[in-house]
């Protein structure tokens, strides 16, 4: 029942990370290894070769302190398709209400025996904290507004499939930049691949400090529209906002929503992606979301491939480190 995947080749000598905590720390070379291996899994997936045995005997736990269905399902499927077993651990949003610290929770799970933990938490830095305190691989599935590396990777993989090299391309990331881990992971990854990144959104959610990080900022979607090759339309994170940063979703949609009229004013081959779940009618109108220039469902398939590559690479590195 298990297929081999000769296209994967030897385990890459230059991949030494047993954790994946973010894209900011990765070198360009590491980023390319990830993307190339993900592409191998994606191609095999399209050819119907979907189940492998690389990680047989491996137990992966998805440790989510924040709600998610898509990312969690994607990680579980990725683990299972590599031959690993996967267990879901759902914790309440804060360890406080359970009376147990995050580190204690993770150590308990580790004591039951697991090789990787896929962690999502509302606080930045929690995966980093766990990586220092447990011996299994830690994969960041989103830490607050900090990073969401596999989402960044699948966005970039999708762009690469449609556009080829990203060198010199311009990518607009639109929406609630202040609270978005996806914006950050996109920015770090895209910059390393030579793309120009513009973060765009209401002035209450897009700060000029982004300029200091080598990223252009804009408060007008209409102004950047003619220049961009890709638009990544972020979801408004209503759950992370304590003071309302804009007066109404109606007004947000007026200023920053992607609709067919705006699509006509963009480049003819403008690619539109969105890290679901999308608020239809807010960030994207249905005709854009479901139209030919959208790659939203492609992103989902790529997500699975990216997560398989991440699990395979971090597992290999962990074995090497722990056998050394």
């Amino acid at each position, binding site marked *: 029942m298990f297929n081999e995947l000769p296209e994967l080749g030897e385990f890459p000598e230059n991949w030494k990370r047993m954790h994946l905590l973010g894209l*900011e720390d990765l070198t360009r070379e590491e980023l390319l290894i990830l993307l190339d291996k993900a592409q191998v899994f994606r191609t095999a997936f399209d050819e119907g070769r979907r189940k492998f045995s690389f990680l047989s005997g491996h137990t992966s736990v998805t440790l989510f302190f924040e709600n998610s269905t898509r990312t969690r399902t994607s990680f579980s499927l990725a683990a299972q398709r590599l031959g690993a077993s996967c267990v879901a651990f759902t914790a309440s949003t*804060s*360890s*406080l209400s359970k009376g147990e*610290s*995050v*580190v204690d929770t993770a150590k308990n799970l580790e004591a039951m025996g697991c090789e990787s933990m896929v962690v999502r*938490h*509302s*606080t*930045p*830095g*929690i995966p*980093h*904290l766990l990586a220092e305190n447990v011996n299994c691989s830690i994969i960041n599935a989103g*830490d*607050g*507004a*900090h*990073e969401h590396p596999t989402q960044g990777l699948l966005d970039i993989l999708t762009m690469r499939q449609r556009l080829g090299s990203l060198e010199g391309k311009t990518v607009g990331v639109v929406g609630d930049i*202040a*609270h978005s*881990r996806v914006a*950050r992971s996109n920015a770090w990854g895209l910059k390393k691949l030579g793309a120009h990144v513009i973060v765009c959104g209401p002035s209450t959610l897009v*700060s000029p*400090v*982004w300029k*200091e*990080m080598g990223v252009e900022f804009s408060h007008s979607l209409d102004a950047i529209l003619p220049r961009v090759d890709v638009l990544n339309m972020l979801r408004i994170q209503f759950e992370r906002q*304590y*003071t309302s940063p804009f007066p109404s979703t109606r007004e947000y949609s007026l200023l920053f929503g992607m609709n067919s009229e705006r699509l006509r004013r963009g480049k003819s081959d403008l690619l539109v992606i969105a890290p679901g779940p999308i608020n239809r009618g807010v960030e994207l109108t249905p005709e854009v979301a479901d139209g030919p220039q959208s790659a939203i469902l492609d992103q989902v398939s790529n997500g699975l491939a990216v997560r398989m590559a991440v699990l395979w690479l971090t597992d290999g590195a962990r074995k090497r480190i722990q056998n050394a």
Partner: protein
Amino acid sequence: MYEKIGNVMQSILIKNGRVIDPSQGMDCVTNVLIENGRITGFGMRPTGKEREIDAEGKLVVPGFVDLHTHLREPGFEESETIFTGSDAALNGGYTSICCIPNTDPPIDTPADVEFIQDQAARADHCNVFVIGCISKKREGKELSEMGYLARTGVVGFSDDGSDIENADLLRRAFEYAQMFDLPIMCHTEDKNLTNRGVMHEGCVSARLGLRGIPSLAEDVMTARAIMLAEYTKGRLHLMHISTSRGVELIREAKKRGVNVTAEVTPHHLTLTDDLLVSFDTNLKMAPPLRPREDVEACIEGLLDGTLDCIATDHAPHSAEKKQREIDLAPFGIVGLETALSVLNMELILKGRLTWPQLIDKLACSPAKIIKLPSGKGTLAVGADADVAIIDPELKWTVTEKELRSRSKNSPWLGKELVGRAVCVLVNGRVRLLRR
């Protein structure tokens, strides 16, 4: 470690140390004679009757005075007690500390003040002075009984931990406290602007996705406090100033003759916000660590006298509270035991400050701000013998074991530091002697 001496006070002669006492412009190698708990003279030769302490190669200075110590007792004894906190003070060269009243219950009645005074006497480590609440129960609604508190000997009033939202109440506090000639000590922070932030708002917070606290949250309330003090002619002491704009506001206010003094913490003089990339909760404090420009402005302010003194804001938190998600961990770090060492390394050894300047900011100036009896913060003849002997070259590593505070929430944990108090005398008695 401690030497309990009986009721008869032995005379002590501290020999051959570099005696630095900015309060009388003294900086020379000499002997200091202590009799009956007081400084009685300089340059005396040993007569054989005194206990002799050799201070050759060391600095002999007035014991430090901290205006900002959280002792946590009563209510949070898992984090610190009056016993452990005053012991930590000695370990850092402090002979007097002023405890902040944000305990549970808050210190807002004479009985609360006397409890602390009694516990401090039992601990018998260093002098502990009490700061009373500005408002009853620290609720920011009504003035505390400042008159009663003044009679039990409080040295000032503060609702530190948070600001007073109601500007009218703060105005009344400035007016009322004048009857007792006591300062209103303000923690300046607009909680709405802080908006659940955990670190300084800027490039680093944007990168890390951590909620930012804008400098503005501190500055608007610093400006408000200054204007209220100016209007009422009250006595204002600003706590833990951390921004360049705050330093400017105070500089201008002092020029206009406003009765304002200000403190800055050792960490705001030595650490910057970019360290937060480690997500270490021991770098989370209020106000937050700021960028280099603010640190430089604070050092400038310290040098030109805009910032009068250095106060630790020693804020112990137990490990189970601090070792949490950075969003939920409490604000604050311990500071009494590392202050001297980090200031030595970052300011003295880097040529920014001289020893007499630093001793003035740690001992003489704070004693003046709260108008401690003339025997504190000075080595003048007749003064209480509160003395610290410092080995400026002594290297030590900050470990949980080395720290006498009950809590170990220090950003310098594991670091090697240089310069440490090796002997501390309080009222003429040796309370710390490192061998």
